[in-house]
């Protein structure tokens, strides 16, 4: 069984935001809600690095632990999904998430939070695969179509990788060997922690 993971290769990410608009396009995410965003460190300085960040679909997901209504669930491929019918928009998950992934549309009066929205690894939600209801609440379900997340598939420099964690790690390891340096994988330690069975982290993974 594959374990789905994201990896963003900071040596390749050029902050083009292709992943961001690919996501907007595929899921028709409204203005102001960003399931994915690109964060740049040392902007304009030597050592400038960019990372594309979304829900990492953590192994031991903090959001799941804190959710008061247990709206989260996990697929057999390790994708962390949630049920918007159960979500009460409390925002606990946002505080728990180390990646700032959960998004809240500013719905209704008094700036109340709407239902939480986040990256689904293009895997939809609890409704039937590729049903109208699923699309309206969660967007497309590409995994059910045999595709991988739109953001990673369209990444301009193949910096963002999304798919089977083993394959992703292999690809990355290969690049690191070629470069002969810089094995740092941003976020992997935090998201995926201890190596799972059959899922080897790339050399030097750290948070």
């Amino acid at each position: 069984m594959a374990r789905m993971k994201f990896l963003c290769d900071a040596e390749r990410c050029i902050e083009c935001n292709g992943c961001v608009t690919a996501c907007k396009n595929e899921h028709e995410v409204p203005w102001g809600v960003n399931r994915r965003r690109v964060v740049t460190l040392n902007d304009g300085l030597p050592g400038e690095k960019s990372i594309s960040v979304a829900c990492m679909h953590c192994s031991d997901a903090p959001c799941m632990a804190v959710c008061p209504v247990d709206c989260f669930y996990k697929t057999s491929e390790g994708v962390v999904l949630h049920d918007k019918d159960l979500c009460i928009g409390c925002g606990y998950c946002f505080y728990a998430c180390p990646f700032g992934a959960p998004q809240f549309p500013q719905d209704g009066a008094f700036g109340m939070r709407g239902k939480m929205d986040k990256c689904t690894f293009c895997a939809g939600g609890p409704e039937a695969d590729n049903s109208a209801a699923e699309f309206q609440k969660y967007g497309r379900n590409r995994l059910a179509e045999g595709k991988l997340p739109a953001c990673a598939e369209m990444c301009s420099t193949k910096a963002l990788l999304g798919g089977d964690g083993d394959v992703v790690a292999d690809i990355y390891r290969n690049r690191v060997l070629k470069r002969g340096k810089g094995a740092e994988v941003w976020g992997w330690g935090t998201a995926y922690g201890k190596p799972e069975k059959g899922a080897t982290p790339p050399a030097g993974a750290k948070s």
Partner: protein
Amino acid sequence: MLLTRKSSQTAAAPSRLARGASAFLGNTIDRRTFLKRSGMAAGGAAALSQLPFPVMRKAEAADKAAGGTVEVKRTICTHCSVGCAIDAVVQNGVWVRQEPVFDSPINLGAHCAKGASIREHGMHEISHRLRSPMKLNNGKWEKISWDQALTEVSDRLLKVRKESGPDATFWIGSSKHNNEQSYLFRKFVSFFGTNNMDHQARICHSTTVAGVANTWGYGAMTNSYNDEQNSKCILFFGSNAAEAHPVSMLHTLHAKENGAKVIVVDPRFTRTAAKADTFYRIRSGTDVAFLMGMLHHIFKNGWEDKDYIRARVYGMDKVKEEAAKWTPDKVEEVTGMKEAEVRDVAEQMAKNRPSTIVWAMGQTQHTNGNAIVRASCILQLALGNVGVSGGGCNIYRGHDNVQGATDVGPNPDSLPGYYGIAEGSWKHFANVWGVDFEWIKKQFAPGMMTKPGITVSRWIDAVLEKNELIDQDNNVKAVVFWGHAPNSQSRGKEMIDAIKKLDTLVVIDPYPSATAAMAAMARKDGVYLLPAATQLECAGSCTASNRSIQWREKVIDPMFESRTDHMIMYQLAQKFGFAKEFTAKIKLSKGKGGMDEPDMEDTLREINRGVWTIGYTGQSPERLQAHMRNMHVFDIKTLRAKGGKDAKTGYVLDGDYFGLPWPCFGTAAIKHPGSPNLYQTDRHIMDGGGNFRANFGVEKDGVNLLAEDGSHSKGADLTTGYPELDHVLLKKLGWWDELTEDEKKAAEGKNWKTDPSGGMIRVFMKEHGCHPFGNAKARAVVWNFPDAIPLHREPLYSPRPDLIEKYPTHADQKNRWRLPVLFKTVQDANKDAGKQYPLIMTSGRLVEYEGGGDETRSNPWLAELQQEMFVEINPKDANDRGVRNNEYVWVESPTKARLKVKTLVTERVGAGTVFLPFHFAGWWMGEDMKKHYPEGAAPVVRGEAVNTATTYGYDIVTMMQETKTTLCQVSKA
């Protein structure tokens, strides 16, 4: 509680992580191992069967899309020149999704923010498009019918022509038009009777085209994005590819991972610099000094390729003398770069060959742009890097089809294929078009047919200049903006005056564009807006920067009331009375609403029949379409097809280079494979090899201009240098009788550029391996240019009066491209401008937006990412002015134009330089112009246009505008 959801039935299709999301070419990863997921059986077919459920939009679109057939249309991104392929999923005529094309050898499925959001073009609900024809009536936009619009527009233009002559009109075409439309546009305006036409190439790479072509033959990117994978050192000098050509970085970063050194020299620490091994800062506008400084070190250390120079370069000795003068202290004085820095770049380029240089607007948009690009060519010639895989001048063009529109489109000094506008050229095309030469001649005012027209950079002067100073009877009175932003042209403040003075202004565009808002701000009437369809709403071919030509399928029908550009041309041609001549040899097909329009495939066939010079003859629609259907057979590194046969037509792809990069000489039947790298002698011409062009005579002042013996493309029967092919040469060589009788009849008295049968090319190239354009040396000295050897000349607005003394600009010119051009007068008058305006103002691109930005700023997915116009300013300059990050400031230039923008305090720019992105418009010196756009058609994001404040300054050869170096002051708003 942990719910576990069962895995879905479908596994990812084989290519998805492989050529797609993954390791990318050449790695040891097996492309077939991709995703180890459960239920592995499925492939592409299974994925397709599950394609889109009709849930895109709740309202009408969803209903419209529901059911019906799902089609996948293959098109090409319409933003930059990389040429990224897109699979558009269309259901019942509604564009419901877009999928990456992993098979494309150019982009392997990758997209930047613009390409990944291009489906927005097809979304009615959120569209900010121009929906119907409009007319400015007493200062208000008023909706009118197409009939009324075409009638009134044509009546007004005919009236101007009748009263003031055809040269009183100016036609601004578009690098966004596909090849066929660009070609038709040249013909259309010619038949109206004027050479007053131009397009974005003027303000993008005109200096490159002129400078590079005059050096060695063709003014285009010599190699390709893909070929960078063969480079050992890549110098970005005047290019910020990470923002302007993001997907090209796929190849650059791959090269880097394989050990190539990446160097960026730029006034800014760009996002490209962030990915480089080496970055050095240079003062804006001192490019020639830096390149000469590099050559100084190269010659001093004997790093030049002496054999190559002897056999293939003319005049390098003279350059060597000039470079000797550029001692490190002088280079530092001018550029601000230390000796060690310049030497380091020279050494890295010399010791890591093949090395390549990449440039874009950073080199071209200067008052001495033609000299800068030639200095870059000379650098590569000195190192023996041209005509070498991994070397070359990788010149990144701008728009998706700016290369093609330059090649076959509306240029004021040239007919399609750079044929020029001498009478012989007109006769050649009269023949190709199937019209009488004398008839065309009559359309023009006497003598004007062979006189280069006005350039788009200077149409405002053609309106405003004193009549006695211009080289045509009347000033320009009517302007047609046909797919061109106004805010990409400099001197915006004066553009408003020009717009006020016009009789008629017509905008034909998918968006009303800033032109509409500027016009409505400046005047009450005489302005028309005609909605055009985008390239996603029609078929046609487009030429990527690497000269590969790709065929776009039509994705959706023209939206709202828009019509295709070629339909509008045809309908105006009907009004002007030359529709029959316009399509004499092109068949018509039914377009929107059953109305006639020129057939795009048939138009390409006409191009194939006429454009021999640059080899646009072998790219038949059938061949191009076969390439698009079989992208997977092309190698990612070489672009060459390994085997492969098109299932639909049986066409054998083996050996073709992807997109048949021009020159693809001879007729399609000869099957020339295209030329991936120009001038490459280690390949046979029928394998895409070549040599430098013989276009400048056979000798100069007693010195041989042809290539030396033994320097020729592989397998050529002529092993010496030789002139270009004509009937005399063919006869002299004794090869004439290899022509068929029909070919002989056609070729008699002709040369390779005018022989309509292509027979001479066939014999010379296919049978004897020789290059139809001859085999000569490249010119390090371009004696027909004002500065035969590239010279540094200070920008007109320079912060350094001491250097203006030492490196003054040109003398004023009385008449270039029909207008006087000021150089010295402006420079002298502004010698001390630096006292009041001490900051160098430069401009450039952002990744989210393209060109003037009307289209991309109207796309909410992009607009959300860049919501405000800004100025990058160094912390020192900000602190000295008491401004802080993210505050409004006024940026004022010597024209007294003032821009109200937000600050971005950053060390990305050095102290003394500020940077502003050029994609914004819709504010005018502090005022939001929203009310001046037609309702609902203002772009989502509006801001000050940097070109409102840019100053006077043009390249002496091409009238390229200076946008990269001027002066300004910043103060708190």
